[in-house]
């Protein structure tokens, strides 16, 4: 089990109901995509937030990554919707 800090933004944050948490992840969670799939098993709030899994953006240590990126060594993983700044 590895421990990781997760942070959520915008409607991902609202649907999950919290802005951050620290979770222990099973060894089967290798990539960012695995993480999303794992989170969806944790309750319906996660299911609602991550329902359209392919639109969820992932950042590891504050840099954008694809869903197939390994998360090993991540201090902070952020999940959020497509950006709408500017």
């Amino acid at each position: 089990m590895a421990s990781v800090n997760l942070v959520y933004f915008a409607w991902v944050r609202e649907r999950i109901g919290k802005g951050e948490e620290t979770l222990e992840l099973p060894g089967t969670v290798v990539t960012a995509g695995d993480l999303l799939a794992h989170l969806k098993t944790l309750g319906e709030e996660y299911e609602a937030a991550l329902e359209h899994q392919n639109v969820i953006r992932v950042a590891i240590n504050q840099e954008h990554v694809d869903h197939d990126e390994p998360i090993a060594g991540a201090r902070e993983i952020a999940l959020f919707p497509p950006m709408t700044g500017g």
Partner: protein
Amino acid sequence: MTGVPVTVRVQRQDFDLAAEVQALSTGRHDIGAVVTFSGLCRDEAGSLSALELEHYPGMAEAEITRICKEAVTRFGLQAVCAIHRHGKILPGENIVLVVTASPHRQAAFDGANFIMDFLKTSAPFWKKEHAVDGKERGWVSAKDEDDSARDRWSNTKD
């Protein structure tokens, strides 16, 4: 590119366009062109009370800095400034400022245009609309046209 000033700020308060342009160009005789882009909170229908801008502290600054440095290299800019506000922003107020300086005009135009396209699609900011009737109108959806605007930079040589 060493020594090219890149100023990036994410802040609650408004910015001062003239002060940022001054800071970037005063005392320099090598700058021929300065382009500024200001993005404002728009409400043609009169139904919006405010935008609320959420951001990812730390990554917002880091990502905008990456974009600005890429623009410096790509277009040969002499100086860049990018400021993005967060929190509640009223119709008519400023949201974002980009300033670019270069010896020639096209590089300054392209640099500011490039930074805005990537800032829109890559910088971690999210807009929520509040209606004048007090109700939340919810989160603004990302636009396909913003992705297209970004992608055009992969199809050109300069």
